[in-house]
């Protein structure tokens, strides 16, 4: 039986817009070290940024006394990212934005973050904390060794 190794990197962000870029850059660095293709690194950057924005804005409600935890777990063939906040968790499921409805004022122009996260990574799940806190989104992106 082969031993599976996982390397963890942790980042703690203040709940202030803009700091999602710190997690984004860290995730990109780890993904590049693991050998992910440039296009997959870009997908991951957007997914991680959107997850952190949701945590800052909706989870921690921009309360700068609270921080957002980002745990990157690099395995042999995949990278898992957990973004943890002190909110109650996302209640609604990601839905595909309807550009026609947005253009006609029937849908908020915003609200695309969860859709982008789910569309850009291989796995995405939103987990509500059991105590109404410490909710997280878990993202997984897999190394595709066969792709050019």
């Amino acid at each position, binding site marked *: 039986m082969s031993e599976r190794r996982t390397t963890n990197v942790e980042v703690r962000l203040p709940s202030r817009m803009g700091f999602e870029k710190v997690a984004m850059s860290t995730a990109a660095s780890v993904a590049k070290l693991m050998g992910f293709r440039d296009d997959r690194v870009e997908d991951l950057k957007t997914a991680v940024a959107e997850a952190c924005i949701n945590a800052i804005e909706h989870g921690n409600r921009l309360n700068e006394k609270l921080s957002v935890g980002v745990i990157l777990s690099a395995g042999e063939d995949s990278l898992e990212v957990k973004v943890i906040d002190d909110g109650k968790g996302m209640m609604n499921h990601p839905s595909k934005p309807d550009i026609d409805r*947005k253009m006609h004022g029937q849908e908020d122009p915003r609200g695309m973050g969860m859709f982008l996260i789910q569309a850009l990574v291989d796995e995405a799940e939103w987990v509500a904390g059991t105590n109404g806190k410490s909710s997280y989104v878990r993202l997984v992106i897999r190394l595709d060794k066969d792709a050019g």
Partner: protein
Amino acid sequence: MQSETKSRVDQITSPAGHPVTVLRFEGDIASTSKEAVLGTYQALPKATNKLILLDFTKVDYINSSGIALVIQLLIEASNSGQKVYAFGLSPHFVKVFTMVGITKYAGLFPGQAEAMAAL
């Protein structure tokens, strides 16, 4: 923390002879970019600026709030009878703009020359 969005307006003429207003953005396009994106667009007279070209060449980071500002610009342009095109997006953001449906309302081009040739 977010890099300030700068914007500039250029007036140029397409090879076909149409006046084109180019909005050139620089920096991040995020929730803090409302004035740079919507404010700059809204300051243009609607009657004389019928073709709007958005230049993202110097933009590195666009998040969902930034995309929402672009959609708000498209809504206002559509209501004013203006046509909007864009160029200079990285392949990743071309993919993202396509995923959210923006390409249905704004033609995307690799660079300014390709956009101008089509206008």
